């Protein structure tokens, strides 16, 4: 771990990514301590202000402090990202191993299921779900879990198939070692690396999706601050002030860049084979 950190720190972009990620995660976690104002407290007198010493990123149409809202918005983004990716990883690993190690018919069924899920354009699928069960953060998380499972599942399946045909695994099977043990001892450690890389490269997509859905009003309910809902306010006010758009987009862009740079750096570190001609 320390070694990994040390090596990332020698890659300037990776280091930049790490700093951005740590900075934004810390600011979200510590939002309660650093936020100068209550993110949902109205203050109509000071509405639509530009940045100032009092309001670092200005205020919105209801006079809420945008900087505080951005900090609290990070909590929503990170909550969605970590819960949904962790759940998708878990289910994906399970289904992928099942497909790779199970009988051929089960493999075919699972793969068909993956292909079907992937045949929906993500946002359209999300909107269809929201239309049916109503907008909420839970819906967003559920949709992201369902649509992310195939990506992880496929990687695990391929890896499982490769290792399954390895001689030492065949030998162990011949000696009667249980399947669960083979999966745990041989296959899990081998898929963890690629999965971590994939997941860290997926976080920006997931955060952007949450922000996008909240931007459309299909995610968090007002007045909960989310980067997406701040951007939505900005869109409504676009002819009056640029600040909500700037406030909402800065953390969104920074965290996506941060996780992408970090992910690429991790990929080069953990699995140089994935690296293409650099």
């Amino acid at each position: 771990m320390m070694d990994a950190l040390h090596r990332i720190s020698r890659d300037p972009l990776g280091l930049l990514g790490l700093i951005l990620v740590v900075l934004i995660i810390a600011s979200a976690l510590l939002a309660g301590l650093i936020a100068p104002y209550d993110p949902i407290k109205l203050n109509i007198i000071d509405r639509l202000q530009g940045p100032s010493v009092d309001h670092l990123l200005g205020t919105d149409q209801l006079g809420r402090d945008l900087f505080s809202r951005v900090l609290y918005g990070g909590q929503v983004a990170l909550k969605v990202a970590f819960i949904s990716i962790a759940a998708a990883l878990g289910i994906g690993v399970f289904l992928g191993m099942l497909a790779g190690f199970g009988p051929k018919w089960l493999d075919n069924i699972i793969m068909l299921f993956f292909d079907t899920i992937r045949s929906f354009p993500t946002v359209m699928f999300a909107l269809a779900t929201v239309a049916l069960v109503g907008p909420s953060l839970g819906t967003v998380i559920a949709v992201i879990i369902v649509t992310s499972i195939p990506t992880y599942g496929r990687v695990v399946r391929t890896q499982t198939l490769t290792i399954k045909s390895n001689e030492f695994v065949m030998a162990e099977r011949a000696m009667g070692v249980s399947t669960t043990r083979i999966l745990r001892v041989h296959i899990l450690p081998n898929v963890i690396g690629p999965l971590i890389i994939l997941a860290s490269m997926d976080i920006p997509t997931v955060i952007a999706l949450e922000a996008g859905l909240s931007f459309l009003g299909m995610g968090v309910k007002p007045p909960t601050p989310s980067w997406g809902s701040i951007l939505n306010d900005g869109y409504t006010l676009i002819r009056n002030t640029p600040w909500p758009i700037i406030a909402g987009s800065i953390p969104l862009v920074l965290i996506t860049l941060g996780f992408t740079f970090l992910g690429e750096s991790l990929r080069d570190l953990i699995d140089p084979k994935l690296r293409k001609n650099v």
Partner: protein
Amino acid sequence: MGLYFLKRVALSILIVMLAVTLLFCMIHMVPGDPARILLGPRATPELIASLSAQMGLDQSLPIQIVKFFGNILRGDLGMDVITNRPVAATVFGQLPYTLWLIFTAIIFAMLIGIPLGCYSALHRNTLIDRITGVISVACITAPSFVVALYSLLIFAVTLHWFPAVGAGDKGDFWDQVSHLVLPAFAIGLSWVGYLSRLVRASMLEVMSENHIRTARAYGLSENTVVYRYALKLAVLPTVTVIGVGMGFLLSAALFTEIVFARPGIGKLIFDSITTRNYPVVMGSVLVSTILFVVSTTLSDLINAWLDPRIRASL
């Protein structure tokens, strides 16, 4: 080749059928009367009754699914609750706007991204290559609706270079083009980055292959080697990527259409959710899913046809 074609198309049809079934099941999994939910609170009791009959809610689930398929095959996607027109008419009225938008965005992305990738590959590890690399990654990760918001803010609202809303007058070609610029830019920007990375990687791979050394050893000019012999191989992956990327393109189009208040299938879905016009939501999602599957399939087939090696092995 023929067999591969048939297999690939059969798989796609199967996937579309499964996707339709999944949508159908989702409608039924929600507690309550499916017809009422599907039609939303705006529906009149008559409509609910007629949809119940049409869906055959009194019959068993498999029969309902078969009927659902039958209706889709006949092009019947249900009735628009607000206008009382067939959903299919509404959806296909909006679809061309989205297709044009996506098409323009992809052409824009290819025109910039492919040459950029070539340049980076041929000037590997120079300062410009590194800068292009970082900018490309930044472009890829920037969410399309953020790009859309910024281009609206900068080029439409502040600078007034381009119109902010709509798709332009139907009869006025240039008006339509000027309405297309910013949305296409918003969708295409991440693809510029993506294609440039992709072409760079595949170009580097191709340039290290033996036949390139042969072409040089026969004294072909560097331009011929790069742009005729290498590029043809290097752009093959882009075809697949664009086909598979149709899902992302449709998603990006949805945001962009909403930001620029531009007609299209994404805007239609969004507006229909706001007005609780659920048959239109489901119809649009269905059509865009079919569109996505068709484009993935087509790109696979085109790729197989473009590359004589794959063509032969099939």
